[in-house]
């Protein structure tokens, strides 16, 4: 998992949470839909990338989030 993504997730949901690739953003980390959008905004800002919104819809796990981020790192 990209360190920047983990940093954003820890900063948003708390360092006490056990964040793994399999973690569900809502069920395991306790977020809601707005949190997921917020996390994407923070990741975009941290990595200086822009992810089309359509690609972020229905992202629910850390691994899916990382996949989408990885696709755009370097390509922007």
């Amino acid at each position: 998992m990209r360190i920047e993504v983990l940093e954003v997730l820890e900063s948003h949901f708390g360092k006490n949470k056990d964040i793994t690739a399999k973690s569900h953003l809502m069920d395991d980390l306790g977020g809601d839909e707005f949190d997921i959008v917020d996390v994407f905004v923070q990741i975009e800002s941290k990595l200086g990338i822009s992810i089309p919104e359509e690609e972020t819809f229905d992202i629910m796990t850390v691994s899916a989030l990382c996949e989408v981020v990885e696709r755009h790192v370097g390509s922007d």
Partner: protein
Amino acid sequence: MLGQIKLVLFFLFLSSIGGAIWYVQHLQAENEILTLNNEKLNGAVEQQQALIQQQLRDIESKTAINQLLDENNAKLTADLNLANEKFNKVNASGDRRDIGNLALSKPKSIEKIERKRQTQRARCFEIAQGSPLTEEELNATKKSQINAECTNIANPNYTPY
């Protein structure tokens, strides 16, 4: 001379009788007026008492309405606090989220979430009006499965964690 005195006494007697009759008639007339006035006053007192009773009933109604308004106000304040909590949630780092800013950055995502919430709110009204819960609603135990708008009535088996 005696005849004259008798005549004077007779007239005095007649005058006294006339005066007495006039006095009694006058008293009777006054009495009638006073009786009428008394009846009017009694009527006025009854009206005032009825008015006071009506005012007491109005005060009771107003008190009941005030209580109802206070209760509704407390519920609305609780809902407002809940909504504020949702919209201005503070993350683990202490940053308060701003839905307005998120909507500016990601309008389609926020619109999609709001559409979903709108559907959930409509379902809340259906449930509140007696619609039975679906299997999906009854079996929802995870946060991603619940109706976020009225979890208490829509997902009885969900325990917040």
